[in-house]
């Protein structure tokens, strides 16, 4: 158990394993995204009330789900950073934030594009949209803090704490926003799913959700791998990796006491 745990937290091990897995995950992502897009755009039936604008849901809902779980994962990585001080978690924390922010942005914009033909307005202060906007602010905060601190692991630890504070606050924010919404708005603008969605409608949604998670995994792995190359420069395996031709000369110079 413990050796497994140490292995998992070692950047070298992650780099090698993720290198093997990445092509497969990328293939799966392309496959799922392709199938999902075709099904969502061409095969799913139009909604009897909203017509074809309903198809935007297949983008909006997966990105909204992913936006929230990205923040969760970021905070979990933050917890690992603060408790166990694992370098890999620091890298993951740093790499999730920009993706999370962009996917939150996507959820917000697609929500607007969906809203306009459906309710005639780009933006309503409904509970979900507002919560999503606040989530975007939370991401901005983490990204801004990250970029303001020069020391890499210091920045990671500060962001870890901030994302944990954010995680504790998210349920409170959500609750307060929902509560505020019921006060100020009659329920006409509510974006409730139809209780009985036919299979042709929810299957593409399921596929798209999986596809979004796969794309996220691919992006995260690629970013973390770059981060490893950046931060693990001092280790021999990274040096060998980036410059195989120089391999022998390093070894000989070390042997000759060149350092």
């Amino acid at each position, binding site marked *: 158990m413990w050796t497994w745990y140490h292995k998992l937290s070692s950047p070298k091990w992650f780099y090698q394993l993720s290198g093997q897995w990445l092509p497969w995950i990328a293939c799966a992502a392309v496959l799922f995204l392709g199938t999902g897009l075709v099904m969502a*755009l*061409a095969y799913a039936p139009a909604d009897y009330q909203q017509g074809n604008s309903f198809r935007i849901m297949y983008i909006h809902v997966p990105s909204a789900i992913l936006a929230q779980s990205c923040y969760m994962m970021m905070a979990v990585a933050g917890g690992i950073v603060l408790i166990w001080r694992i370098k890999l978690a620091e890298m993951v924390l740093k790499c999730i934030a920009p993706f999370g922010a962009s996917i939150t942005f996507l959820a917000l914009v*697609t929500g607007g594009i969906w809203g306009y033909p459906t309710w005639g307005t780009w933006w309503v202060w409904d509970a979900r949209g507002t919560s999503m906007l606040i989530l975007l602010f939370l991401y901005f905060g983490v990204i801004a803090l990250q970029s303001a601190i020069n020391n890499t692991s210091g920045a990671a630890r500060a962001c870890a704490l901030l994302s944990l504070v954010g995680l504790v606050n998210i349920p409170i924010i959500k609750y307060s926003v929902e509560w505020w919404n019921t006060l100020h708005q009659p329920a006409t603008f509510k974006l409730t799913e139809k209780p009985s969605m036919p299979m042709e409608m929810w299957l593409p949604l399921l596929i798209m959700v999986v596809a979004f998670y796969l*794309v996220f995994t691919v992006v995260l792995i*690629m970013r973390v791998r770059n981060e490893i*190359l950046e931060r693990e420069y001092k280790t021999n395996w990274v040096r060998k990796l980036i410059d195989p031709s*120089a391999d022998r000369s390093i070894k000989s*110079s070390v042997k000759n006491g060149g350092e």
Partner: protein
Amino acid sequence: MYFDSFEAFLAMGKHGVYVWSAYGLAIVLLSVNVIAPLLNKRKVVAKQQARLRREQQKRASN
């Protein structure tokens, strides 16, 4: 297939603009997220290689 013709598929009822712009934006955002680390990897590797070479030169001159 839900649509009768390719034109109907493009038109999406009256909602073509909205549907296609939403999907377009999604594709653009996802591809940017995928392409950015790919480009960045080249930059990082080039940077670290230059650093390695500098150090090797320094060692050689010592």
